[in-house]
């Protein structure tokens, strides 16, 4: 039982990333009708916002310590971060320690801007082009973005640790009546799941309870009619592109402490996220979220020793297998709407 609960937790955790990326993808597809293969790159840029803030907070000045030597035997140059010099060692160290959560504030305007520039500068020119063209241009953009990141940050993964207070693990088993050590789970993974639920809730609330969201939903249902009412739906959709970019970016910011960011991380998630969107149903926001968590959990269970021993390789194909089964039984996906991608 404890093993099952552990894999469910792992699945929710993986599913959080899938759901957030798929949510953004669906927002863009549902509003603008664009298949955005650069969405994984937005996730990666978000993670590198955290890396950048961490580097900025660690900007240092050098002092020479004659008592220590560097690898060539010269006096060691000791680096002291400016924030520690300005705010004192303790406050400065705390600010650096909390760089990942602080990066949320740093990333939001950057990701909105990146999304806005991406949509206005490139993607809007492809609205009336076939989906194949959209896929090619956005995939090309993703490669360009990841090469730019590699140029500035290198190919090696870069650690972005969580704050000390949120690192380490917690014994969840004891809290629900299991033996000690039965369900040990990393604190930051729980934080990530909670954060994902919060972001998903915020996006849905925004669409459901604000006038802006109502207009966007109306535009997703019938763009032409909303346009005929004199509403500038294109502008709102551009803003939604920015919001989708911010959602992907925030998913990336908070993902860094789970696995160190590298320039390729967006591509690692991209294909899986598209499968999530298709399984959930093209254009369906609840479907994207549901499928994200569902596939995350299934993938976790497929990675257990029991599963890989029973069906070798199942951990590598489970998501695609489920996609095939869902599409055979429900061609529009779990929560797909009639008419989407069917004209």
């Amino acid at each position, binding site marked *: 039982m404890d093993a099952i609960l552990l894999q469910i937790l792992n699945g929710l955790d993986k599913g959080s990333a899938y759901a957030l990326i798929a949510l953004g993808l669906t927002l863009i597809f549902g509003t603008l009708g664009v298949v955005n293969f650069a969405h994984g790159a937005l996730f990666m840029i978000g993670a590198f916002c955290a890396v950048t803030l961490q580097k900025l907070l660690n900007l240092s000045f050098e002092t020479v310590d004659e008592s*220590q030597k560097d690898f060539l035997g010269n006096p060691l140059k000791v680096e002291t971060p400016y924030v520690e010099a300005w705010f004192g060692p303790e406050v400065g160290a705390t600010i650096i320690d909390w760089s990942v959560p602080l990066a949320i504030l740093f990333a939001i305007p950057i990701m909105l801007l990146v999304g806005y520039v991406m949509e206005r500068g490139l993607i809007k020119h492809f609205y009336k082009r076939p989906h194949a063209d959209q896929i090619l241009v956005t995939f090309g953009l993703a490669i360009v973005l990841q090469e730019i990141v590699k140029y500035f940050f*290198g190919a*090696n993964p870069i*650690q972005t640790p969580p704050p000390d207070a949120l690192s380490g693990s917690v014994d969840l088993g004891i809290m629900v009546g299991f033996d000690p050590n039965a369900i040990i789970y990393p604190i930051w993974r729980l934080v990530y799941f909670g954060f994902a639920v919060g972001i998903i809730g915020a996006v849905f609330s925004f669409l459901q309870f604000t006038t802006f969201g109502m207009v966007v939903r109306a535009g997703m249902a019938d763009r032409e009619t909303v346009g005929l009412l004199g509403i500038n739906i294109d502008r709102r959709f551009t803003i939604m592109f920015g919001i989708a970019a911010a959602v992907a970016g925030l998913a990336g910011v908070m993902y860094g402490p789970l696995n160190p960011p590298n320039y390729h991380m967006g591509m690692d998630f991209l294909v899986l996220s598209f499968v999530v969107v298709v399984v959930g149903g093209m254009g369906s926001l609840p479907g994207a979220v549901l499928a994200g968590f569902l596939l995350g959990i299934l993938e976790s269970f497929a990675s257990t*020793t029991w599963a890989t021993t029973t069906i070798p390789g199942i951990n590598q194909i489970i998501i695609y297998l489920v996609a095939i089964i869902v599409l055979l039984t429900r061609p529009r996906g779990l929560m797909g709407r009639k008419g989407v991608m069917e004209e």
Partner: protein
Amino acid sequence: MTNKSVTRRGVLKSGAVAGTGLALPTIFTASSAAAFTNEPTGASVTLGFNVPQTGPYAEEGNDELLAQQLAVEHLNGEGDGGCLNTFTSKALQGNGILGKKVEFVTGDTQTKSDAARASAKSMIEKDGAIMINGGSSSGVAVAVQGLCQEAGVIFMAGLTHANDTTGKDKKANGFRHFFNAYMSGAALAPVLAAEMGKERRAYHLTADYNWGWTQEESIVASTEALGWETVNTVKTPLASTDFSSYIAPVLNSGADVLVLNHYGGNMVNSLTNAIQFGLLDKVANGKDFKIVVPLYSELMAAGAGENIKGVLGSMNWNWQLQDEGTKAFVKSFGEKYGKPPSNSAQTCYAQVLLYADACERAGTFNPCGIVEALEDFEFDGLGNGPTWYRGADHQCFKDVLVVRGNENPTNEYDTLEIVEITPRAQVEYDPEHPMFAGGELGKCNPGA
């Protein structure tokens, strides 16, 4: 009177034969005037440096390339000469190779076997490279080694750790300076016994490809010989980015040691995940839980950050060694590039010098002469102390390092501390050892 009329069928046949001939790669149809492939005829000789310039190991490839460029400088008499001053063979004079200036071309392996073969082929065919050096993957090494054997050029492997490179896939034209998975196990086992005891239960997570399998096999064999029990061996897909599903069951498996047979990004992520799950804070079977990473590199250690503290592993070489060869190389590299070299950089540097030295001693660029000069060559002064290039399988034997993630690093490069320098004799094995069985070295191929 004979009928000499031209038929449609005849034209087609002739065309097909001619087309096939033209389509054949020139490396297999080199001019009969040359004694061997890409025989240098001018004032220079071209070496091909095939390293990952893009992809997940691009940092490693960049470090290799820096070392290769440094080696070329030293061969041409530029810079401080580096290990030319410490190398026990005194055949190299800093005047190029056999009096010819050394030039180089580079290729990008992308850490993909097909891309690596294509770039090596291009350097041999189009650029006239007479030797190929570099790489950061066993799959790439085996693929390029095979190509070089067919093409008739020498392959001086870079970072390749799978037993197969000098085991079942060994080739007469290929030489490996880097150590292998068997040697990692042989070096690590006594240290593991001393630090963790002989009654341990190990759980292996293994990258699901050739290198991972051979490393798992080697480490399982050497730890079980100590008396350890192997609780489970789980294969993880190479493309995995999150290992939480694989790490979570370890806690309740009855194991008290986790062995991560992962490299590069896989290792950085699996170790990070293992630390997140608090494995190193746990007590299992009445013992402190431990993690072992059998193959380390400095770049991986940097990627893993603080998570690597206290974790044991093995290395081919480390810049902190105090032998004269190491000190000379670290000084040259450090002063030129402002950082210490990685162990893959050191291997590539040593391989370029060893190739050049073999040419000088053989008095020829002919691959068969070089093979003869390198086989059973014993030398010192390039790092790791006295070293032997065994003729039977073209595997280099030298001391192997057991290292540990540094608990108290004094600078950003001080990520690993040397725990033990395992003597060469302890990591030697019979060329017919079952882990290396199944292949034939064959005969050297000069091409042409």
